[in-house]
């Protein structure tokens, strides 16, 4: 696989771990990974938003335990640190969806430097998602 596109919508701490782990795995192997963060997940591309992510729903009370387990597995427990690790592979590009950025108050001033840009969904879907060898939605 030469390229993979991932669209991330779910923003709870536990649910965002899977797309980030998949991205880390593939980018580490040399696959070009392009990620589009939509809906609430766009806030993971801000430092404040990434640090605010929590396990939610019926597992919310297990947030501290999940973080300990993540660290035990060898990943950084903070989402922002996982994003930095993914970027350190040199093979991942992270984009914020422009609609999500507008709705959830993300702009160039609070976007983390690890994010490439705020882009339109049309551009990502046509230039990245449909061009990739594999596309995933979370």
């Amino acid at each position, binding site marked *: 696989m030469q390229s993979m596109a991932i669209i991330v919508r779910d923003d709870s701490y536990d649910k965002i771990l899977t797309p980030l*782990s*998949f991205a*880390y*795995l593939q980018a*580490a*192997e*040399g696959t070009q990974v392009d990620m589009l963060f939509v809906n609430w997940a766009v806030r993971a591309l801000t430092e404040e938003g990434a640090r605010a992510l929590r396990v939610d729903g019926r597992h919310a009370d297990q947030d501290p335990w999940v973080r300990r387990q993540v660290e*035990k*597995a*060898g990943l950084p427990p903070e989402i922002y640190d996982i994003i930095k690790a993914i970027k350190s592979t040199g093979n991942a590009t992270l984009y914020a969806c422009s609609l999500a950025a507008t709705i959830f108050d993300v702009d160039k001033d609070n976007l983390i430097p690890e994010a490439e840009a705020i882009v339109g969904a049309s551009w990502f879907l046509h230039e990245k998602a449909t061009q990739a060898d594999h596309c995933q939605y979370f």
Partner: protein
Amino acid sequence: MTQIKVDQTVDTSGKCCPMPMVETNAAINAMQTGQVLEIIATDPAIKWDLPSWCERTGNAMLDQTEASGTLRYYIRKGGADG
């Protein structure tokens, strides 16, 4: 087993997916063609991940052992000149 000369070891003991494969990729990328990487792991998922990775990436699995829950793999880095 025949004695294998190991050039580098990556110990992923205690860690789980994705870290053993992430660390394996990082280690192999820093090595020269023909060198041997020893991977130590306790995550049983590596039994599936590593053979598949070797096949895709052109790296050769020389040997593997398992003792008391610790897995050891010996991988020779492949390459155009290898």
